[in-house]
């Protein structure tokens, strides 16, 4: 297998994490306008929880159910803080609220899991036995597949089912949707719960692949946010953007310089923001 394929694969693996976080950020942003910077710490909580449970030799199925349940409650709690307790705050202050939640969660991680980076034992042990897939890590493959499946399933749900359409209606025009009998509050909470569960799933899938520690949350949230922004706040766009972002990172690390990996990604974001600003400007100028 060529080096290039390997790089591509490891890039897609990280990209899958960004995509999963990004998709959750898109759900919450579309439902409330808030950019959720606590997403990365939700992801970390999922990862830490999986690690602890697996060390206690809890069966995988139980781990999955526990993580998803805890993350659902976490998502609900975040909604409660931002949309009940801080309901009348401006968007900027709610954004600040997500930062505060991120700090609280990372404080919990520090308290419960300590300062040292840690990881999870692999739970998909078999390697693919034949052909070019042989040297690929099945654990990473599961993560990539998970991200793609979640993205597509979410897209189909929002696009094709009546519940999904109601959710989108509640997000785009809450008063209009409420007037036509859509329970806006229910769908808003659903967005938070769903985003929490997706982040948890990401944590569960990524825990055996990466080393996690309590300081990483905001960094991951930021990369998810970049994926969501470049993906135009759409589900499939974010999926593609996240995977691409991871790949670019990996390519820069190997062929460019490791240290400028982040710089390139963030420069990309700023270039994107400027380009988007330029397009809006041109569009308005033409009117």
């Amino acid at each position, binding site marked *: 297998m060529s080096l290039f394929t390997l790089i591509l694969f490891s890039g897609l693996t990280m990209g899958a994490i960004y995509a999963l976080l990004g998709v959750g950020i898109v759900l919450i942003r579309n439902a409330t306008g808030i*950019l959720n*910077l606590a997403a990365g710490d939700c992801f970390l909580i999922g990862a830490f929880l999986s690690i602890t449970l697996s060390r206690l030799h809890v069966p995988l199925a139980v781990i999955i159910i526990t993580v998803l349940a805890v993350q659902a409650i976490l998502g609900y709690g975040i909604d409660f*803080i931002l949309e009940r*307790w*801080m309901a009348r*705050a*401006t*968007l*900027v*202050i709610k*954004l*600040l*609220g997500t*930062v*505060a*939640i*991120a*700090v*609280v*969660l*990372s*404080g*919990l991680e*520090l*308290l419960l899991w300590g300062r040292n980076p840690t990881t999870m034992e692999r739970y998909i042990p078999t390697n693919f036995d034949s052909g070019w897939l042989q040297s690929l890590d099945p654990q990473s493959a599961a993560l990539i597949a998970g991200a793609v499946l979640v993205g597509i399933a979410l897209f189909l749900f929002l696009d094709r089912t009546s519940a999904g359409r109601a959710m989108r209606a509640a997000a785009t025009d809450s008063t209009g949707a409420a007037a036509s009998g859509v329970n806006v509050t229910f769908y808003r909470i659903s967005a938070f719960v769903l985003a929490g569960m997706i982040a948890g799933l990401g944590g569960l899938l990524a825990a055996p692949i990466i080393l996690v520690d*309590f*300081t990483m949350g*905001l*960094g991951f949230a*930021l990369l998810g*946010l*970049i994926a969501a*922004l470049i993906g135009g706040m759409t589900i499939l766009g974010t999926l593609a953007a996240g995977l691409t972002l991871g790949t670019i990172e990996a390519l820069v690390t190997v062929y460019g*310089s*490791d*240290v*400028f*990996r*982040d*710089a390139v*990604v*963030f*420069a990309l*974001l*700023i270039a994107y*923001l*400027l380009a988007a*600003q330029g397009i809006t400007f041109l569009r308005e100028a033409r009117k």
Partner: protein
Amino acid sequence: MTRSTILLSCGALLLIGASPLWMSDDLLRFTTTLLIYALAAIGLDLMYGIAGLLSLGHAVFFGIGTYVTGLLLVKGDSGILFAVLGGVLSATIGGIAAFTIGAIGLLRRAQYFTIVTLAAVGIVFSVINGSAWTGGPSGLTGIRKGFGVNPAIMDLWLFYLSLILVFLFILLIRNFKNASHGRALRLAKTLEAAAHSYGFSVYGNRLRAVVLGGAIAGLAGSLFALSLGAASPEFAGLTQSIDLLLMVIIGGAGSIWGVIPGVLIVRGLPEFVQAVRDWQVLILGLLMLLVLIRFPLGIAGTLELYWKQRARLKAEATKPGRHGGADPDAMQGAPTIDHHPSGSAPLAATPRIQDENSPLLALEHIGKKFGGIQALHDVSITVQKGSLHALIGPNGAGKSTLLNCITGLFRPTTGTIMFNGVDVSALSAEARAEMGMSRTFQLLELAPELTITENVKLGAYRRQRNRFLSSLVLGVHSREEVELERETARVLAQYGLSEIARDLPKTVAVGLQRLSGVARCVLSGADLILLDEPAAGLNPVETAVLGKRLRELVGTDTTIILIEHDMKLIMDIADVISVLVNGSHLRTGGPTAIREDKEVIAAYLGSELED
């Protein structure tokens, strides 16, 4: 300020100022770093607390400051001169970095600034962390080597320098907050469009605030490098940025001095109480959440509020019993309004056109279509200078639409608008305001975070001549601010608003909020004031006061266009009345003529005049 607070603050200052006498060397050095963090946080509070721009990358400027000074002293030469040069360069480059980030981040709405600052942390941190010339992850050391100064003496200098800078910048920025530009920046936080309509350049002034905040942080970074003798990439990292933010939020955003309790909690607590080490992050996060949910003003702001309330209660207890409502002096209409105080007044009034013959405002064949609906149809009305011209008509007659066309919020579909003999049809609302129009809105537009006095003062923004920097240095002590304070107090008294002058709009009756809007127009010194239902929500006594004031205003050569449903008020004070029905101009004439006009009665007045 009472005598006890003055004594208390003098005592605290003495204690801090004399701290080298009672502190150990280590404690003194630590206190210096606390002061330096406070200085950096002041820059952040200027951005967030005053300009409303949430930066999650403030450490970028701080880190740049440490590295600029560090590199200069390590790679260049050592010595006092280079240290001073390092400070200046650090502030400058911090400001340039802030300019770059601000210029991009302010292009879009609020949350985008935050994203750009986050991206900036990513870029700057990884460049510092990854470059050979910055010393990579291990950073720079030996910045203080070869200074030739006794380290203890140098620590002492740095302590006093930091102390002086912190107090200087607290004073300066608080001063700035309460003067022209700071006031308008705080307005723009919630009501950006309103800020534009006062002629305030939101983008430019936000950018200035960001640059100043970045420069302050750069200076703080420079001091930090000198104090520590080392620089590390973490100084520019995300954790450092969040710590600075925690100081500002917990301490009290917008209060500026809140950075002191803030830095004590965020940096002091874990240093002095070893037991909280592992709990530190959680505690700080919970504190921040608590502040955001329950005490949005933070420690300093909540204390200020408490002191203010206590002072007011005391004042009310000592004052003889008094009836609420409008100021009785004002109701007897004692001093006539001195609308444009002449002589040495530093507040320049807008120049008036001398030509007395031409009408002030001429509307010619104005039509306005919204989609298929013809809201206005061929309206031609002339408004004479120095008159009180009322616009009446049933609901939906197009009165507010016409007002919006005059002030430039709407572009009429057909027709021209001549103001002071100039065709203004194609000009923006801002440009028309610049030419001397000022208006109130049917919906309330007072900034929720500003007191009634501050809201009213905003009306005079256009007449103020202070620049961003002069309002930073002189601030509330500049001649024009002192003059404005006096003028505002006078206008508020005349409109019976003195009692509520220090209140926030949300605690004030809707009618009085509207009246505050009128007072603000008065203070703008505009030639033409357009009032949209100013008497709605006022009681009969307050309405009578308003009518009297408006007559006095017309007496000083100001022209008023008034939309109102209170027929008694209109008939009492209007010089000329124009009637609009279904978007068309029905009649214009004096009150008596209008009252007796058959068509007007049939269309509109009939029932209401019987009351």
